[in-house]
């Protein structure tokens, strides 16, 4: 063993490890690690790869269900049976810190990474969604970050030819210097074509394919597991550069190769922790060993040492474990696509990951020590003191008799305004599958090959979670599932991306705990298994932690084409119903924050049973073919929901809200959850009401679609009165105009 050196405390802590963790490494090795070995443990035991602070919590999530083919954590992504030999594979991941430092490349490589997770499973990636969060739009920094992030996503997704069909964009002070970039990818495969990330079969060759290895991104995983500081820009070399064309070649070559019987034993992409992670993880999953020689790894720079080669996070690289005897076929397939596959090592039965340099052993560690033995911590948790203060609502200003101006203002608030400035930069139609385009509650795809339809949505309101981590997260899961349901789908799986602050701070950890408990409770109630996801902690900057943001991604299966439902008003004379009741309370609402300048709770009441009842009722009504349109109330409340139905349907509506005891602004803009605005043809009114009774669902008829005015009256007052065209203008142009301010 060469280069044995005395580890100083400095070197150990620079590697993001504690002295206790260092002692643990010594136990596994039976000796001091060398510098390279320390590097291997450093990245594999980082939060990003080892989930050391979150794993004990994540174990609480329900991961089983009738359709589950591959469970969360078993492989790069979970897989769900959708019937007739077909399955879907999907996952969401964060690329927050790289995007904060270098928005274009950070976001682009985030897209590249999640796509690799999907096609590594043998599935063809067919859809992307992006959940983005920035500071306030009127800050120059936000516009600069957003320009970079959106063009980075566009660069990668458009070039590789996978449609970006949905997502969300939020603007809120707490993300100002720590933006969130959460990227979702979904792929489809025939069940028999799924590929595992396993290295098995003593002597089987290990190939390296794709871009050559450079010094970019060394220790990216460790970097992602630390707080952002004033000096983080000095970490820029930790951010990698993106080459979507290379990845397009990899996708096509790999999917072609996987179809050739008996050629491939296992595959793993080189994402976080690069060559290190892919080699030890495949060996660990295969209960085998692996041996590679760094001298055989294609490099783009001279003089790279084993440490740099093993820890580089250069993008667009794959590790392919082939069947012995099929080497020529593997090489030939990659050559067709202009790719060079380099033989870098072979599978062993030692259970160890051995790294050589020109034949000389430079690292020798048990694979499972790297992958399964990362220390797991139960961190101290403490309810944040600020919660009491922010959940006391002050007295509100007196009611007004008309709120049309407030509605116009809300429609032009960036969180509510149309996101077309963003999604028109993404190719959302390539692949000829996109049935419901961005700007709806959920994206809907048809799967030509499988003859099926999918709905998918991603959601989270960070402000809700800041005010109440548990209920805010329940509401995020509920909204995400609801968006799928009102588009005609039955949710079949959920992926999450948990963006939180430093877990070593008890208040942050408490919020993470509450959020995970909420995901568990909601998923159990809605019978949706969690198929995987990712955790992004340490989202803090000198200005403080971000709002806790557990982003959800839910995918649902739509039975038949006629079930596909959209939010726009369809025909004059259709009756408008509100399901779920008028709700109560303005706490946490966009109106309270942007119009009255109060960022406080408490959140309006939420009940899981009510939500579940609502979703089952709406789905049944859709499947019976009775709903002309469906749209849930979310940011901006009932008034904004009605305005969106009107604008997108290019029709007005006359509504009278028959209730009492609520403030005018409360009934219009309160964000009470579990509510859906639906329209029904007049001749189906009785059937619809009967069905609601069967489900014990709370419905109330509000009015009728027609004309060009949106009129909403309550308590004898005409609270809203405007042409839909006048509502549309600020809504459609607000973000574009906001972005026009000089960066």
């Amino acid at each position, binding site marked *: 063993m060469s280069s044995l050196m005395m580890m100083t405390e400095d070197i150990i802590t620079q590697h993001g490890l504690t002295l206790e963790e260092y002692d643990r490494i010594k136990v596994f090795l039976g000796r001091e690690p060398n510098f390279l070995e320390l590097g291997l443990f450093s990245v594999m035991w980082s939060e990003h790869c080892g989930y050391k602070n979150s794993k004990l919590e994540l174990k609480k999530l329900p991961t089983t269900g009738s359709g589950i083919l591959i469970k969360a954590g078993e492989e790069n992504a979970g897989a769900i049976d959708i019937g007739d030999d077909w399955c879907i594979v999907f996952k969401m991941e964060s690329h927050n810190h790289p995007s904060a430092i270098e928005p274009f490349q950070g976001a682009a490589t985030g897209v590249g990474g999640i796509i690799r997770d999907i096609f590594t499973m043998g599935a063809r990636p067919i859809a992307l969604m992006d959940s983005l969060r920035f500071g306030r739009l009127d800050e120059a920094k936000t516009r600069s970050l957003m320009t970079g992030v959106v063009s980075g996503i566009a660069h990668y997704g458009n070039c590789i*030819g996978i449609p970006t069909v949905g997502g969300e964009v939020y603007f809120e002070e707490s993300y100002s210097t720590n933006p969130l970039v959460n990227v979702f990818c979904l792929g489809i495969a025939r069940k028999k074509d799924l590929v595992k990330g396993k290295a098995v079969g003593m002597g089987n060759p290990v190939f390296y394919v794709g871009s050559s290895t450079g010094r970019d991104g060394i220790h990216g995983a460790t970097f992602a597991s630390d707080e952002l500081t004033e000096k983080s820009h000095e970490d820029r070399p930790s951010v990698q550069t993106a080459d979507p064309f290379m990845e397009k070649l990899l996708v096509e070559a790999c999917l072609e190769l996987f179809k050739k019987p008996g050629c491939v034993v296992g595959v793993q992409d080189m994402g976080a922790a690069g060559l290190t992670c892919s080699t030890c993880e495949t060996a660990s999953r295969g209960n085998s060993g692996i041996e590679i020689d760094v001298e055989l790894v294609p490099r783009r720079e001279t003089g790279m040492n084993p440490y740099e080669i093993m820890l580089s996070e250069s993008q667009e690289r794959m590790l392919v474990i082939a069947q012995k005897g099929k080497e020529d076929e593997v090489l030939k397939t990659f050559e067709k696509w202009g790719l060079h596959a380099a033989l870098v090592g072979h599978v062993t039965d030692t259970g160890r990951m051995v790294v050589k340099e020109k034949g000389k052993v430079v690292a020798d560690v048990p694979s499972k020590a790297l992958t399964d033995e990362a220390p797991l911590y139960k961190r101290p948790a403490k309810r944040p003191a600020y919660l009491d203060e922010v959940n006391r609502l002050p007295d509100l200003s007196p009611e007004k008799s008309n709120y049309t101006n407030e509605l116009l203002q809300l429609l032009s608030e960036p969180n509510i305004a149309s996101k077309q400035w963003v999604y028109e930069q993404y190719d959302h*139609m390539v692949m000829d599958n996109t049935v419901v385009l961005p700007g709806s509650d959920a994206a809907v795809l048809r799967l030509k090959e499988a003859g099926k339809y999918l709905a998918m949505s991603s959601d989270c309101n960070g402000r809700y979670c800041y005010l109440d981590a548990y209920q805010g997260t329940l509401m995020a899961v509920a909204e995400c599932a609801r968006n799928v349901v009102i588009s005609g789908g039955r949710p079949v799986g959920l992926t999450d991306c948990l963006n939180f602050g430093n877990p070593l701070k008890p208040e942050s950890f408490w919020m993470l705990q509450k959020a995970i408990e909420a995901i568990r409770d909601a998923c159990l109630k809605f019978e949706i298994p969690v198929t995987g996801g990712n955790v992004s902690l340490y989202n803090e900057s000198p200005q403080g932690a971000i709002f806790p943001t557990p982003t959800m991604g839910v995918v649902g299966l739509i039975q038949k084409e006629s079930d596909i439902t959209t939010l726009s008003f369809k025909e004059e004379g259709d009756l408008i119903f509100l399901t779920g009741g008028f709700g109560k309370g303005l706490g946490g609402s966009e109106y309270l924050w942007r119009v009255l300048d109060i960022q406080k709770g408490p959140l309006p009441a939420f009940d899981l049973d009510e939500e579940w009842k609502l979703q089952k009722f709406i789905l049944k009504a859709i499947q019976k073919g009775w709903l002309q349109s469906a749209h849930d109330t979310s940011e901006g409340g009932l008034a904004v929901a009605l305005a969106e139905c009107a604008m997108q349907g290019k029709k007005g509506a006359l509504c009278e809200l028959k209730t009492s005891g609520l403030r005018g602004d409360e009934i219009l803009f309160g964000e009470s959850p579990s509510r859906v605005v639906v329209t029904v043809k007049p001749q189906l009114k009785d059937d619809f009401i009967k069905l609601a009774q069967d489900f014990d669902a709370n419905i109330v008829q509000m009015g009728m679609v027609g004309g060009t005015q949106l009129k909403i009256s309550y308590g004898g007052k005409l609270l809203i009165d405007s042409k839909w065209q006048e509502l549309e203008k600020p809504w459609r142009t607000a973000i574009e105009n906001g972005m026009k301010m000089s960066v």
Partner: protein
Amino acid sequence: MKFAVVVFPGSNCDADCFHVIKNVLKQPVEYVWHQESDISHFDCVILPGGFSYGDYLRTGAIARFSPVMNSVQPFAKKGGLVLGICNGFQILLEAGLLPGAMMRNSSLKFVCKYVYLRPENVKTRFTEQYQKTEVLKIPVAHGEGNYFVEPDVLKKMNAQGQIVFRYCDEQGEVTRDSNPNGSLENIAGIINEEGNVLGMMPHPERASEQILGSEDGRKIFESIIKAIMK
């Protein structure tokens, strides 16, 4: 009758074109790998959209040198039908099979959305199923669709009916606001003098089925089929 869909490394609308021809129009179609050289047995060659070779240099600049283009040139000279969509259009410009050049969109941003088109010449073999009064709804998705050509060539093209599609508004008016990329005279698609090579930025293969929101692009393929059958 047989269609070819050329696959360059980085093509990404190849499968969409293939799907529409095979499953929607029910016509024989084959993929042609960019390294193949014999395309003489096809009746119509489609250069699909995408980012051939990554388009890191200039759109279509590298694809024009790929082996298959050595066959597309004589194929076109002999009168074979060639349809270039989006990146395929850009390649046809680079290869000199169509006049003019592409610049980056005037917004400097990629743009993907439905646009409206006016068919300006319905007497070509690609458009004879259209009426001149129609307004077509077909999506675009590109970063470089800002078409430019020298004034004297443009004059000639206009005179000879070589401008086949222009961006317009929903009512069919050619307006500045309806132009998604700043192209000269709202040009969206052009044809060569001989009338057998058409290049267009909008994607007819994305507008050939009702479920995707528009069938207005299908008549391009139907026109081609009819022309070949003649």
